[in-house]
């Protein structure tokens, strides 16, 4: 069953006066971020989006979350068009993922607070989630007092608190060092495997994509659309050891091949744009 259906999505941004951009070689004052973007996401799956920088992955997540509306096409969530942010979706941003004036606990409570859940109940749920991420001792800390990895754990806990059907994650681990990143991937997959939440996860790391995903969706260079959907045939539950298996390497290679040509295309565009091409 598909929980999210994106049908023929287009998203354009009007540029400021005097700014120009090339869309498929045509000069325009509108950026075409997505065009002909079709994607069906199965209920409960872990879908990872990879694609060149500027290919519209973040724009797509914003559309799914209801933060912005498509220029054309419709995104269905549970059969209904997405129109505004709702409690059905949780969103983990890469930056500004927490309110700096709230403690870790109070940040996790946010979504519940907005829903009007009573204080006791809120605190109970938030404590449970923090302990799931091993952060029980840090509940009274403000974000700036936490390491980057802890901050991201808190923001994932925050997004999970309202038990969303869909969890959107935009490069949540991109700013972390390699070790912390692997630890968080392991934690995320352990916690997710115990839920029936659907996840859409954006990353630039092929390893991260293969380790986490049921399917990897490769997005083309701008204007973005789905180029290829790759099934990751690694067994679950997954643990860290799987990273060194030959199966992992085979899946990794599949994704790499699909991504390679798009990344070099995107590079060419930028070179043309900055005037390096002969």
């Amino acid at each position: 069953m598909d929980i999210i259906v994106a049908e023929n999505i287009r998203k354009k941004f009007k540029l400021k006066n005097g700014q120009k951009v090339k869309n498929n070689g045509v000069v325009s004052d509108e950026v075409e971020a997505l065009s002909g973007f079709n994607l069906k996401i199965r209920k409960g799956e872990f879908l990872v989006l990879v694609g060149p920088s500027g290919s519209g992955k973040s724009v797509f997540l914003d559309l799914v979350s209801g933060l912005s509306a498509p220029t054309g096409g419709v995104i269905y969530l549970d059969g209904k068009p997405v129109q505004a942010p709702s409690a059905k979706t949780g969103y983990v941003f890469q930056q500004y993922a927490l309110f700096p004036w709230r403690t870790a606990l109070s940040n996790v409570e946010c979504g519940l607070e907005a829903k009007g859940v009573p204080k006791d109940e809120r605190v109970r749920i938030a404590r449970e989630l923090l302990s799931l991420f091993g952060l029980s001792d840090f509940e009274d800390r403000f974000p700036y007092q936490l390491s980057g990895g802890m901050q991201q754990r808190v923001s994932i806990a925050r997004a999970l608190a309202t038990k969303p059907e869909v969890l959107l994650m935009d490069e949540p681990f991109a700013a972390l060092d390699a070790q912390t990143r692997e630890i968080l991937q392991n934690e995320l997959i352990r916690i997710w495997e115990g839920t029936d939440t659907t996840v859409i996860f954006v990353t630039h790391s092929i390893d991260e994509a293969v380790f986490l995903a049921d399917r990897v969706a490769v997005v083309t260079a701008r204007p973005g659309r789905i180029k290829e959907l790759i099934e990751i045939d690694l067994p679950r539950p997954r643990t860290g050891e799987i990273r060194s298996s030959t199966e992992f390497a085979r899946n990794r290679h599949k994704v790499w091949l699909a991504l390679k040509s798009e990344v070099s295309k995107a590079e060419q565009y930028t070179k043309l744009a900055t005037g390096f091409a002969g």
Partner: protein
Amino acid sequence: MFQSRGGKDKSMNISNQIKGWFASLTIPFVLLVLWQVIVSLGYVPAIILPSPEKVFSTFMTNITQNDLLRHVAASLERVILGFIIGALGGFSLGLLMGLSRTAEKIFGPTFHVIRQVPVIGWIPLIVMMFQIAEIPQIIVISLAAFFPMTLNTLAGVRNVRKEYLELAAVNGFKGLKLIRRVIVPAALPSIVTGTTLSLGMSWAVMMAAEFFIDTSYGIGTRIQAGRSSFNMALVLVGIFTVGLIGYGLTITIEALGRAVNNGRDVHKEI
């Protein structure tokens, strides 16, 4: 810039504080010595510049015999009442204009024209409209508090990062909850600055208001009395009192501001 994550070292703090007090007393001490020297050498007639000793004794007799404390209390009461009215009004208008472009279009131009007139400029008009001395005093003081509060609240609300508004939206904050739980906390540093400036302005304008509007009690009234009886020592007592109490108010409101901001350090982006 290095920022320590934990609390500061307590023992360092205390010795630094003592050093700080000494440092802050250097200039007053130098000025006092200079004053004494000028008076002792007889450069300036005593009627223009009385000796520090004379000013001090005037201060003591004013406290014991001339109700100085009552004058101070009258001024403080006016300032606090005017400040609360003006700051609340300024906060409300600033918030309203910050949240709604329509409200800014409606109120903005009038507000900006009115604030070009120095607060003291309104005194004749207000005095003519309200006969009882206390009311125009308070109106003038609340006007002084109103403008900085409005401007800083407006700026704070306008400058709330788009990212925090998006985070609020995906968390489901709407309406009043959005304002109370996200917009006001995000704008808090600017609101605290506005509050501090407002109180400072209220205190300063109080003195002018008391010069122009007759009242029986008030520290400004006292200075005025000193001037008309050519009692320079009394004038100086008034000036020192205004300066010191104003400083006390500033320190208090700044400490309150820090307490409100404590920990929730909005300046530290993450």
